[in-house]
């Protein structure tokens, strides 16, 4: 799955990613946004002992893995450990990588496991991915107000990043991780279920709830009345 892919049948195709944007009118991805397709070659070279190839993979993904670690753990030191351990373990176990998925997906899987271990150590009684969901905080149909065409453009990039960090940090980890894997990292529903050790149905249910919760949380910043 392409990272951040939204595909609504009947509407113009819009594919978004941290580094790729394709619009309906211009289907050709921007050169700087294309996910480079030499990843498999780099992995093969790294497996054969070419450390510079592995370093290229590190350079390519270090920021994303650090962001993922920050988003899950909400702690800089933990995020650093997560990133370092993920790259060291992936290097150490490169021989076991069979190429069934993208290297990046495999790396994300390692990083998520490391991040969840950090959370469990920090809050052993609070982080359970099997925790049942309650209906008490049902966000559905609260605060229905349009945001206008490009609500994020009302904020400077730094301010927007702070808002996003805050709202995602307010979520329970069981929701946060599912959203980050599925919607930000573009990991498939099945792979997300595998990584987290939960059912596909649980992934779908949590993704729906998380999307609605985040919508509700962002509403106070982006609703049209805020811009007037």
């Amino acid at each position: 799955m392409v990272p951040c892919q939204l595909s609504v049948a009947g509407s113009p195709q819009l594919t978004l990613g941290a580094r790729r944007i394709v619009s309906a009118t211009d289907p050709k991805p921007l050169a700087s946004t294309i996910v480079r397709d030499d990843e498999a070659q780099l992995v093969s070279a790294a497996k054969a002992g070419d450390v510079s190839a592995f370093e290229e993979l590190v350079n390519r993904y270090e920021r994303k893995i650090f962001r993922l670690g920050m988003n899950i753990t909400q702690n800089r030191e933990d995020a650093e450990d997560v990133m370092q351990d993920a790259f060291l373990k992936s290097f150490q176990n490169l021989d076991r990588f069979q190429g069934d998925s993208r290297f990046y997906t495999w790396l994300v899987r390692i990083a998520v496991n490391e991040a969840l271990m950090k959370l469990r150590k920090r809050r052993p009684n609070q982080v359970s991915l099997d925790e049942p969901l309650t209906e008490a905080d049902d966000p559905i149909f609260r605060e229905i107000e349009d945001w206008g065409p490009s609500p994020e453009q009302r904020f400077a990039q730094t301010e927007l990043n702070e808002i996003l960090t805050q709202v995602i940090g307010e979520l329970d980890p069981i929701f946060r991780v599912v959203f980050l894997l599925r919607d930000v990292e573009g990991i498939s529903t099945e792979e997300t279920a595998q990584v987290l050790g939960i059912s596909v149905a649980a992934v779908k249910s949590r993704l729906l709830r998380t999307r609605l919760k985040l919508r509700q949380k962002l509403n106070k910043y982006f609703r049209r009345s805020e811009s007037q």
Partner: protein
Amino acid sequence: MNCKKVILELTSYLDGVLDASVRIDLEQHLARCSDCRVVVDTTRKTIQIFCNSEPVPLPDDVRERLHTALLERFRRNSKTI
């Protein structure tokens, strides 16, 4: 289709994996229900905003420690080969 059903199908709709007949029902509902249109539209924008966000900057000291640790691992591995 009613509003509750739209919400239940929202994720599949936004991911483009909804059965064609259900999608048509859903879109017919959206055409006449402004509340659902807003929920669908703002949920879609929520995902887009997160997707478009830049990865946080990687602090220089953090990056340096990562690459030092990797170099150390590379050296150790080359000695064992």
